[in-house]
């Protein structure tokens, strides 16, 4: 079944990731309908897109600026009836997603594809909440969305080849490559990244090296733009712990056991950049 060209994309959830997706869509001529629960979140979302435009200008980016006129911000999810494709970016909690998918299924036209922007939750399980499991897939965008050239695309058990084609075409239109992987806990990115970060924390705990030394090895020796512990501070140590625990539970494999130092830091409120203190001090 051909879905026709996608021109308007529903963006559900206006947190960091939803804002990034809307920004990216508005840069490349797509219309976006951004839905969230309250006006204040939507007001901030518009502000962040303006700030994103300024950031791009500051860094001399050659990518187009996001055209805010192409974005509609709304608290009424019935507006999603106009969407040709939906990217869902709400909080990474099953209890919340479980409510949202059946509702999207009722509100959106039957041919519309749903992409879950998740780093953790099973696409196959989300698809099971709808009557269109062949039209559900994962799109794990990286932050900041407009600056990342590729997206980890996840094929659920029932995801059809047509759905993957539609998703690929949309991502190409957004200036991105799709890297398609199968549905497994943590997919590729988080399974490797979280284990790397967790092991880096063990190195600090075991006094093999300081956080700065661990990061310098990754930056100076491997050419990574950021080390694993700086990355952990940026993502948030609470989020890292949550992700490692998901892997640990999903695989029931002790290699994913969270480092005790990570748990202690999270308990102590050292959540990284957003809390002012993690492996490094901010402000």
């Amino acid at each position, binding site marked *: 079944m051909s879905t026709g060209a996608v021109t308007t994309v529903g963006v559900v959830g206006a947190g960091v990731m939803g804002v990034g997706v809307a920004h990216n869509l508005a840069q490349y001529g797509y219309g976006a309908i951004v839905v969230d629960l309250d006006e204040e979140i939507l007001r901030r979302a518009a502000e962040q897109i303006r*700030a994103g435009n*300024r*950031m791009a*200008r*500051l*860094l*001399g980016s050659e990518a187009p600026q996001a055209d805010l006129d192409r974005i509609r911000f709304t608290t009424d999810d019935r507006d999603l009836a106009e969407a040709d494709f939906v990217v869902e970016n709400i909080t990474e909690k099953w209890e919340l997603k479980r409510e949202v998918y059946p509702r999207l299924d009722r509100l959106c036209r039957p041919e519309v594809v749903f992409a879950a922007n998740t780093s953790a939750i099973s696409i196959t399980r989300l698809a099971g909440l709808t009557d269109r499991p062949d039209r559900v897939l994962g799109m794990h965008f990286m932050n900041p969305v407009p600056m990342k050239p590729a997206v980890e695309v996840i094929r659920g058990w029932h995801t059809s080849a047509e759905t993957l084609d539609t998703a690929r075409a949309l991502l190409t239109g957004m200036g991105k490559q799709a890297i398609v992987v199968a549905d497994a806990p943590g997919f590729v990115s988080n399974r490797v990244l979280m284990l790397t970060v967790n092991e880096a924390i063990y190195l600090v705990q075991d006094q093999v090296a300081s956080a700065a030394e661990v990061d310098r090895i990754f930056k100076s020796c491997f050419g990574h733009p950021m080390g694993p512990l700086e990355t952990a501070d940026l993502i948030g140590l609470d989020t890292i712990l949550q992700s490692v625990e998901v892997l640990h539970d999903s695989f029931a494999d002790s290699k994913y056991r969270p480092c005790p130092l990570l748990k202690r830091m999270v308990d102590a409120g050292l959540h990284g950049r957003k809390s002012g203190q993690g492996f490094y*001090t*901010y*402000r």
Partner: protein
Amino acid sequence: MPHARTAIRQFILSRFPGVTFDDGEDIFGLGVATSLFAMELVMFVEQHFALQVPNEDLELANFRSVDAMAELVQRQRAAA
């Protein structure tokens, strides 16, 4: 603009304690400041000096050094 220079220098040092640099030195050449920090500098300058950096001045060259930022602040104030 001695006050502006002091405030800007203090802000940079609050983020990178112990780093030494001259007012004319490229702070992005020190190996500590990243592009994320560049946006923080814009926000700091706008909030601290209560001004809005116009689009045409949003370029890294204006934020590379304490001197460059102090000059930007002076220009914006003169234009206001």
